């Protein structure tokens, strides 16, 4: 109870400070009087006794301060007082405060923004039950599907494997399967018009293993997934449910029509859970048992023992370690796959399987393509913004040091009045903390907007990447930590310097001369550090910009100008399948023909892939050409209309392009690129030679090469030379979703777009146009990440230089002001103005040279970590390094020029009177 009484009394005395103060005064007076009376009794004269008593007691104010300090309530009281004082101080020098808060806003804001992204992409666990218990079979690095016998590290699994595995394994309390590709399709809810929806197929165990309960209704259960077609049901994600039904519970039971199948909405998943893939929000979960109802090229084969397209997620049983689970999984994996290969697997299949393994990886954070793409860039950006904040801190520390000199008298006065050194330090740190908190508050507001903006810039596309960027506890803790650290970084040195001062000489002399030189050394070291860091950041920025320029200079192999790319969705058009699929190709040809008739259109073609939207690849084997390491690599395939090469502007090098000779029943033909021709036929023409897919010599004669075209980029600008083969749509029937249109330079693009839209609608109104872009946009989009990194690093590099320049300007201005009389005397003694200017510039050049001497070697030894992000550029690129050096030098000299000019134009008589 004692501390409670203490607390109560403390609070009471906080609210009755005046009374407490009066009582203390009275007690002290009584003390002094009693002491004096005592001395008088001992024979001292009354006057002397009173004086002696006062001397013995010392300063009444100091005693009162000590009594007050012995009680806990003095701490909050002091903090409040310090805060009030700090606000007054900052208010009194608005210029300093604004610059300090602004640079902190940028610094802390940038750090928070990048960390918010880093957290959302790399750190945040899925909102599932005990995420640490979840393990993924494989590392989640591949997605899609494969029919190949597993060799090497395996990440995708077939449904028969899933069923066998969950039967036999003993390490996991449950195993869930989820389709590795979430796909977009069109859905009509209760008869409303079709709209885009993102569907993910999941096993009946998915929600129970992840531990995601239903918010409304029920989740998908085992019975929905028990037999083929058993579960025409759908579970919505909470955010989709909110968007489309405004949280109306009567949505349950509504019918959702997708690709001519009806699903009943049976439930809504827990809020915050957007699926297993971070950065790909799922709208609807549908049981794997409904897989056949979806029209996806190459699918419909989940019963196939080797059709591997699923991620498997296991929840560890209590007490089982990940290593034990890994050992058991690998054992079972080989057994089960061996049994799935059938009674007589080939020697090669067994050989492949012998090399296959499954690595268990933590699945608590889900899997994410963003994570793979952005981990390194985000880490580097994090380092960049941390350095910028460090430079901002150095700047503010420098300004505080200068202010400390101006406030020498104030500090000395307060110490004379009984303030302890620690009180002074605390008060000065309070000012720093106030600055940091103001900067952080504005910074967090900035970061909120900036992180979403950055994400959109880095991942441009028709839809924003769904990523939860609301600050969570981790982000708030990070910002708080950064803020405290920042305040300590820039506040400690100046505070200790200010408080550690010998105050007697300072009281006498307004300008404080002796201590200034030590302070000057500190200020100068800070400047040198700033210059060094800004050189480092400028080198980094230069490297990224030069790498981006290299990327822009890459020859795509096609002509991206004047080409439109339409992406089409035929899932609601109910196009014929199987033997009738050729009608889709005829439909495409009709669309191509009517588009060709539009004025301004030069040519058009459907294609399986345009540029930068995934692809399809395999090995091929030519009849009569032995397998070599180079020709054994993957060949990227495309399926195109006849006009593809003229539309894309890909030059034909040899043979012919596709034409009306090529028919469904005529011999199968292909056009290959120069790289493929060179690797298979280094010394002769490939025209007329035949090849087949895969490694099977019996199939090697299936397809004849009729033409050779120039190499093009397929997935990305940064890829190396790829082997490519093109097949005509007519011999690989299907409806292909990319439609490219070349128009004449100067044609009205908007007009063409709307006329193409109506041409498509005219042929089949159920084919929906998902998006229209230009090929140039597509090419730009493929380097969006590099562009954002280059822009951000340039921005931060220039910010760093700018901050360093403010620092140099401040230091030199201060130095000119302090040396006014010296400069005046020099001028009076006949120094020329250029001599005076040189006096100040010399100081700047010395700092600059020191900064460069530190910064350049540091930059050269650390840019190696950027190597993976640089395209055909050495991390020691001399151009980038020289640009950085020149840039920093020029900026620094400009910053020094103004104070130097002031020194040169000094007014002798005024300077001499100033002292």
């Amino acid at each position, binding site marked *: 109870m004692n501390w409670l009484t203490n607390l109560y009394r403390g609070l009471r005395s906080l609210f009755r400070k005046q009374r407490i103060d009066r009582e*203390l005064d009275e007690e002290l007076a009584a003390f002094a009087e009693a002491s004096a009376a005592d001395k008088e009794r001992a024979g001292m004269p009354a006057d002397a006794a009173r004086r002696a008593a006062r001397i013995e*007691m010392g300063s009444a104010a100091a005693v009162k301060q000590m009594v007050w300090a012995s009680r806990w309530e003095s701490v909050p009281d002091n903090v409040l007082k310090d805060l009030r004082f700090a606000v007054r101080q900052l208010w009194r020098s608005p210029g300093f405060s604004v610059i300090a808060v602004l640079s902190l806003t940028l610094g802390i804001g940038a750090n928070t923004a990048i960390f918010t992204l880093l957290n959302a992409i790399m750190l945040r666990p899925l909102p599932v039950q005990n995420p640490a218990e979840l393990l993924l079979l494989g590392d989640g690095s591949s997605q899609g599907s494969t029919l190949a016998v597993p060799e090497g590290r395996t990440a995708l699994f077939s449904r028969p494997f899933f069923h066998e595995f969950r039967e036999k394994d003993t390490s996991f309390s449950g195993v869930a399967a989820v389709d590795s590709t979430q796909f977009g399709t069109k859905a009509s809810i209760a008869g409303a018009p079709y709209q885009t929806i993102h569907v993910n197929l999941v096993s009946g165990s998915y929600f129970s293993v992840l531990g995601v309960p239903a918010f409304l209704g029920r989740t998908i259960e085992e019975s929905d997934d028990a037999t083929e077609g058993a579960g025409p049901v759908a579970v919505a994600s909470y955010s989709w449910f909110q968007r489309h039904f405004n949280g109306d519970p009567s949505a349950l039971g509504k019918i959702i029509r997708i690709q001519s199948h009806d699903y009943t909405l049976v439930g809504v998943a827990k809020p915050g859970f957007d699926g297993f893939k971070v950065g790909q929000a799922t709208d609807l979960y549908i049981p794997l048992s409904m897989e056949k109802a979806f029209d996806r090229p190459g699918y419909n084969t989940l019963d196939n023992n080797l059709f591997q397209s699923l991620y498997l997620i296991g929840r560890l049983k209590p007490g089982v370690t990940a290593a034990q689970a890994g050992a058991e999984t690998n054992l079972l994996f080989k057994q089960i796959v061996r049994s799935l290969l059938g009674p007589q697997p080939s020697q090669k299949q067994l050989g492949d399987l012998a090399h296959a393994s499954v690595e268990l990886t933590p699945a608590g954070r889900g899997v994410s393509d963003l994570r793979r793409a952005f981990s390194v860039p985000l880490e580097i950006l994090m380092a960049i913004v941390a350095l910028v904040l460090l430079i901002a801190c150095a700047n503010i520390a420098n300004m505080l040091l200068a202010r400390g000199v101006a406030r020498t008298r104030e500090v000395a006065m307060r110490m004379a009045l009984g303030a302890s050194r620690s009180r002074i330090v605390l008060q000065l740190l309070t000012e720093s903390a106030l600055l940091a908190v103001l900067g952080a508050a504005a910074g967090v507001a900035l970061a909120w907007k900036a992180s979403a903006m950055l994400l959109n810039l880095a991942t441009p596309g028709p839809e924003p990447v769904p990523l939860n960027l609301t600050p969570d506890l981790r982000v708030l803790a990070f910002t708080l930590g950064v803020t405290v650290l920042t305040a300590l970084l820039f506040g400690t040195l100046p505070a200790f310097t200010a408080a550690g001062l010998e105050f007697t000489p300072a009281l006498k002399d307004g300008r404080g001369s002796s201590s200034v030189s030590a302070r000057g050394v500190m200020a100068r070291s800070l400047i040198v550090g700033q210059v060094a860091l800004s050189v480092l950041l400028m080198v980094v920025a230069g490297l990224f910009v030069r790498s981006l320029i290299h990327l822009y200079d890459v020859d795509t192999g096609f002509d991206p100008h004047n080409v439109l790319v339409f992406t089409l969705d035929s899932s609601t058009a109910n196009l014929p399948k199987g033997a009738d699929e050729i009608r889709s190709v005829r439909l495409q040809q009709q669309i191509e023909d009517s588009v060709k008739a539009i004025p301004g259109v030069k040519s058009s073609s459907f294609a399986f892939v345009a540029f930068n939207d995934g692809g399809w690849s395999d090995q091929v084997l030519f009849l009569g050409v032995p397998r070599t390491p180079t020709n054994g690599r993957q060949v990227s395939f495309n399926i195109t209309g006849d006009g593809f090469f003229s539309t894309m502007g890909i030059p034909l090098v040899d043979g012919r392009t596709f034409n009306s000779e090529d028919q469904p029943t005529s011999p199968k033909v292909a056009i290959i690129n120069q790289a493929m021709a060179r690797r298979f036929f280094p010394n002769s023409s490939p025209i007329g030679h035949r090849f087949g897919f895969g490694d099977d010599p019996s199939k090697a004669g299936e397809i004849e090469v009729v033409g050779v075209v120039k190499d093009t980029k397929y997935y990305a600008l940064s890829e190396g030379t790829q082997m490519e083969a093109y097949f005509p749509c007519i011999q690989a029937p299907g409806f292909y979703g990319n439609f490219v249109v070349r128009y004449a330079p100067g044609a009205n693009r908007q007009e063409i777009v709307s006329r193409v839209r109506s041409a498509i609608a005219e042929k089949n109104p159920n084919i929906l146009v998902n998006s229209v872009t230009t090929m140039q946009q597509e090419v730009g989009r493929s380097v969006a990440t590099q562009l954002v990194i280059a822009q951000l690093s340039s921005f931060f590099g220039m910010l760093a230089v700018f901050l360093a320049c403010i620092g140099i300007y401040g230091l030199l201005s201060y130095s000119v002001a302090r040396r006014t009389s010296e400069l005046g005397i020099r001028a009076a003694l006949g120094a020329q103005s250029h001599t005076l200017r040189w006096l100040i510039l010399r100081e700047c050049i010395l700092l600059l040279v020191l900064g460069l001497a530190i910064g350049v070697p540091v930059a050269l030894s650390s840019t190696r970590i950027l190597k993976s992000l640089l395209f055909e550029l050495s991390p020691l690129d001399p151009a980038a390094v020289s640009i950085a050096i020149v840039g920093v030098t020029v900026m620094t000299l400009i910053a020094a020029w103004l104070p130097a000019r002031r020194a040169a134009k000094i007014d002798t008589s005024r300077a001499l009177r100033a002292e």
Partner: protein
Amino acid sequence: MQGTLEMLILKTLALEPMHGYGVALRIEQVSSGVFRINPGSLLPALSRMERAGHVKSEWRATENNRRARYYLLTARGRKALSAETAQWDRQTAAIRRILEA
């Protein structure tokens, strides 16, 4: 020595309630002038002890009829005194043994 001052104050107040100067004077007299305690240490110590509940204070009239703050020992303070005295005895005995060894 840390806490010694508080022990001396407790011991002094154990005789009778006193005001601040009385405590200082008493300690000085009894120690024959060895310990002179100035208000800068005495008053913060008394303030701490009051918060710890070892003493309480009230305003009373002095012998020359002025108002002064008198400090009284509480039951908890008495307990603290005997505990600290016992501790002190142990320590001094130990030190003495070391010095005489």
